[in-house]
């Protein structure tokens, strides 16, 4: 990848976006009327959630691409997407749990949004367990992983629409009539963090994809040498 230099410069821009987002979240945006300052965790929580969905979506699309094209590069992207998605899903669950403790006085509750998100987390952990079982056979690892990822991603729309389909105490920020937030400064903070998280997810996915590619190339070279 010869354009690594440009991309690492872009990384600094991403960092700047993060700093601005943090500034907005902590200092510029006002306190929430009811929740006061604790509401600010929402910016990370929401950004992580959307980044998580996008990462899983890219992993899903890459899985389909692999099953069609059978090029291992797609499988590496699919694995990278799943990894990054899982990391952000963990952030969602942790930040959500902290917020729940402050806002609802409980670390966890059996609410459709929470349950389906936890299920999503377990699904992708199972994805990696499945891949680990096939560690010796790269091709079967890729096929099995892609197939499971095909089904596992179906939970993401369920998570997203769970607050509309079922009665849920989880706050509905995005509705048909637009974004349900009172102050424009809050919306700006939310958007800034959203962009920042998505770009961070993209950067991390690219990193993991490179690392997977290197591992595969190394293994292939090793296999060649072994055959001499």
């Amino acid at each position, binding site marked *: 990848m010869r354009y690594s230099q440009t991309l690492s410069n872009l990384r600094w821009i991403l960092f700047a976006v993060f700093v601005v987002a943090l500034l907005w979240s902590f200092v510029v945006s006002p306190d929430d009327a009811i929740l006061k300052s604790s509401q600010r965790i929402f910016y990370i929580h929401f950004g992580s959630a959307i980044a998580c969905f996008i990462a899983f979506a890219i992993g899903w699309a890459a899985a389909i691409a692999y099953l069609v094209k059978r090029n291992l590069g797609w499988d590496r992207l699919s694995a990278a997407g799943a990894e990054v998605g899982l990391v952000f899903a963990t952030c969602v669950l942790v930040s959500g749990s902290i917020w729940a403790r402050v806002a609802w006085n409980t670390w966890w509750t059996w609410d459709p949004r929470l*349950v389906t998100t936890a299920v999503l987390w377990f*699904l992708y952990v199972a994805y990696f367990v*499945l891949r680990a*079982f*096939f560690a010796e056979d790269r091709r079967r690892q890729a*096929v099995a992983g892609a*197939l499971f990822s095909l*089904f596992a991603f179906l*939970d993401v729309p369920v998570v997203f629409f769970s607050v509309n389909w079922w009665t849920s105490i989880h706050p509905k920020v995005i509705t048909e009539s637009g974004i349900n937030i009172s102050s424009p400064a809050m919306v700006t903070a939310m958007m800034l963090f959203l962009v920042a998280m998505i770009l961070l997810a993209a950067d991390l996915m690219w990193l993991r994809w490179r690392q997977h590619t290197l591992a595969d190339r190394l293994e292939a070279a090793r296999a060649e040498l072994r055959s001499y």
Partner: protein
Amino acid sequence: MLLGKDLAVEFRSRETLSSVLVLAVLVVLVLGFAAPSGVSAEAAGGLLWVALLFPALQIQTRLWASEADQGMLDALMGAPVGPAVLWLSKFLLSVVLTAVLALVLTPLFLVIIGETVRGPLGIFLAGMALGVIGLGAVGATLSLLTARMRLREALMPLMALPLSVPLFLGAVVITSGSLSGTPHQVGLWLLLMGVFDVMYIALPLLVADILMEV
């Protein structure tokens, strides 16, 4: 011709069914001991599905086991019928076996826990039917995916349970509602379970050949 093959496979699997049924009865008995003074109708719905789930997983894990153990999976790939049809026959087998399990287990459970279906029977049966079909579909797919693996009994439930959660949620809500007599949001849940079932039948049929090659 498909059905004939399916039934033949069924008769062969009398061993699967009998051991699973014994397990199921034991689970219900244990539940009876765990809640000697009965449980609320709401809880009973959930407990019924828990009692059904683990024996059902046993059935699913073993669906392709005899083919895989005898190394027949590769041979079957070249069979004239095509993998989609093979999956379909296993799916039907799974549904039939799970339905038998449910038919035996549900009355037994209701008697031991001491509940009756107070709500509309049709809704109760619809919930059970959609749940059984869904479990059958997920099981047929995942057991095919893990058929050639050494530790398939361990891994398959790990994957099947999270995937089945939307189905499970629906089944529990509808069953609890029917048992307590106040079913809520029935249309929505039945629709969700129906969509789940359709997707988990359509998708595997589409990718059946890839499933078999894993």
